[in-house]
């Protein structure tokens, strides 16, 4: 999980447990393992369809960590839910999700079950509610193993102990007979990670894996995720609203806003030469350790409703760089600093060499506004 991809992939290939039959199945590092093409998701609502995801394209390569960043409502979780086929039946999903030469969206529930958990696994946001309260954690891990391998219950429990040890749960052998309510949030998330690892998947999708946890536990969970990735050699999609989580982990980063990708590129591209004002704004609102920060620069306003969206750039109302062009035409993703670095902004070039507090009006965070916000909260 270093930002330098090639070294990282070699480590994976040497790591025990992945050079066997599973290794040949996996193919070579750097190959595309999952490809999302023009994925759109909408939900019906009283005010018209809610277009949660609007035409998302991306590829995931073997062994890499792809970070997806965005605020609540940007469609980042819905995208991964659509990939896994976990959306409620009321959702309309179009596009393609290519995995192993097959389109997951067109597979039957049965065929999809052969892939879910076995080849593509998922980790969810809230460990407090992710585990079934009435079964022991051992049973819940063993169940994942037995869903895809014809092994005895005892064997599966042995594997559960192994997995718990891998994610560093102390006294794993005794712990397998614990119920979820007897474990802390961090421990439960480790169990969920163990479940995701159970069948050596090719892809692990982690949807805000640390958001619901204490800051003190977050680092441990990120470490457990890294262990999981090392042990399975899986490519990982790391979804978060926290750029700080992504910064040290992701090889590539995608930024989502109002259901669309607005910027994507290597971690360096996105963090050091952002070409979309929204990304710049996100970076500006991040506390930094590497240089003294006088104050943080918030982005004014809130994300738009994705019901009955007006034409134009969805970020336009909050964007200090907005022009008439932005109000009329929604920008497409296009190449900026290199073929891999894409941004959806008419004015991408004007962002060369600027920092957030030069673009965003920092007055938003003055005392009057804070007081006003506080009084609105009181209502």
């Amino acid at each position, binding site marked *: 999980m270093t930002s330098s991809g090639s070294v990282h992939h070699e480590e994976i290939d040497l790591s025990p447990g992945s050079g066997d039959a599973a290794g040949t199945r996996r193919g070579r590092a750097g190959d595309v393992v999952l490809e999302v093409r023009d994925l759109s998701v909408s*939900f019906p*609502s*009283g*005010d018209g369809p*809610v277009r*949660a995801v609007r035409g998302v394209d991306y590829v995931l390569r073997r062994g890499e960590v792809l970070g997806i960043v965005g605020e*609540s*409502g*940007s*469609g*980042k*979780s*819905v995208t991964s*839910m659509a990939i896994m086929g976990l*959306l*409620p039946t*009321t959702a309309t999903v179009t596009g393609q999700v290519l995995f192993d030469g097959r389109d997951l969206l067109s597979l039957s529930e049965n065929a999809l079950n052969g892939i879910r958990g076995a080849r593509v696994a998922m980790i969810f946001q809230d460990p407090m509610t992710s585990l079934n309260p009435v079964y022991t954690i051992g049973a819940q891990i063993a169940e994942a193993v037995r869903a895809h391998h014809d092994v005895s219950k005892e064997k599966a429990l042995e594997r559960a102990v192994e997995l718990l040890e891998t994610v560093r749960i102390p006294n794993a052998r005794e712990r397998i007979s614990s119920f979820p309510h007897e474990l802390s949030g961090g421990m439960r998330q480790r169990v969920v990670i163990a479940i995701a690892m159970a069948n050596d998947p090719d892809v692990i999708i982690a949807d805000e894996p640390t958001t619901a946890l204490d800051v003190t536990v977050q680092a441990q969970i990120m470490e457990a995720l890294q262990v999981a990735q090392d042990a399975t050699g899986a490519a990982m999609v790391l979804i978060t609203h926290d750029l700080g989580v992504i910064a040290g982990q992701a090889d590539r980063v995608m930024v989502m806003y109002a259901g669309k990708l607005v910027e994507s590129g290597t971690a360096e591209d996105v963090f050091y030469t952002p070409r979309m004002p929204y990304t710049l704004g996100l970076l500006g609102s991040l506390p930094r350790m590497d240089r003294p920060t006088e104050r943080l620069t918030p982005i*004014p*306003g*809130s994300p*738009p*409703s*994705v*019901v009955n*969206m*007006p034409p134009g750039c969805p970020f336009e*109302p*909050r964007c200090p760089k907005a022009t008439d062009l932005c109000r009329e035409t929604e920008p497409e993703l296009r190449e900026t600093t290199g073929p891999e670095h894409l941004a959806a902004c008419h004015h991408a070039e004007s962002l060369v060499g600027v920092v957030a507090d030069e673009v965003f009006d920092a007055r938003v965070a003055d005392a009057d*506004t804070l007081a*006003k*916000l506080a009084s*609105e*909260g009181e*209502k």
Partner: protein
Amino acid sequence: MPEHTVTSPETREPGTPVTSGVDREFTVAERSQTQLVLRRFLQHRAAVISLGVLIAVILLAYVGGMLWKYGAGEITPDNSQPPSWDHPFGTDAVGKDEFAQVLRGTRISLQVSVSVAILATLVGTLWGSVAGYFGGWVDSLMMRITDLVLTLPLIAVAAMLAHNFGGTWYLIAAVIAGLYWAYVSRVARGVVLSLREKEFVEAAKALGATDTRIILRHLVPNALGSILVNLTILVALAILLETSLSFLGFGVQAPDTSLGLLVSEAQTALTTRPWLFYFPGLFIIIIALTINFIGDGLRDAFDPQQTKVRQ
């Protein structure tokens, strides 16, 4: 998947800043809580239709009863007539017009059940919220009493009490309310318990608000939805209990009448005068059904999350 619940403007977090000019094109004008509830209620088709039907039934019972050519209890020369234009619900053995009787029965049954609902809600809410707010041994003691009331079959206890004290509609109402408050207090306690732990109550406490202020400004307005929903459903429960009591012969007594008493009287000649059985029963069902649908609509309107979880 919490994303798309935030997508419609109504579900905006209360603290979200709405700076004019910033999201001018996206924000629908902020609606007040009452407007929101009303709007969501109007979206519940069954509830709106039910409200219309219920209002029609109430108007029919009170206004229609006064305008109808036959008075309730008035003996007409036609006895044992099946439904006709002259007697839409037919007549009974002595010639009383069943339509006029059903309208009078509806009035009495509605009076009883609405009084029960209001009385039981007042007592039960007070009882339950005091128990829930103070907690500890006060809560334990008060709730054990509630549990004991709920251990007994209410219709049986009501029959015993009504047999000795009853007969008139307001005494029946008092007897039924004297038992139903226990249901309400359970609900009210649950609501208060969950609200007590909410951040805004803790915030108010931290700011030094008094108990009275917390109860009046924070608990009551927030519990109002549940209380109102419960009050509605209580009307339906009460009308069923009242008619059952009257049917068993322990409720409203002749010469007064209630829908249950009318069904009971019809029992003796079911095969010869079946209309006397069907019409009062139909009115009970219409009233209870529409009230339940209205209650369902109110529940959706006050708490959209409860029924439409992530759908």
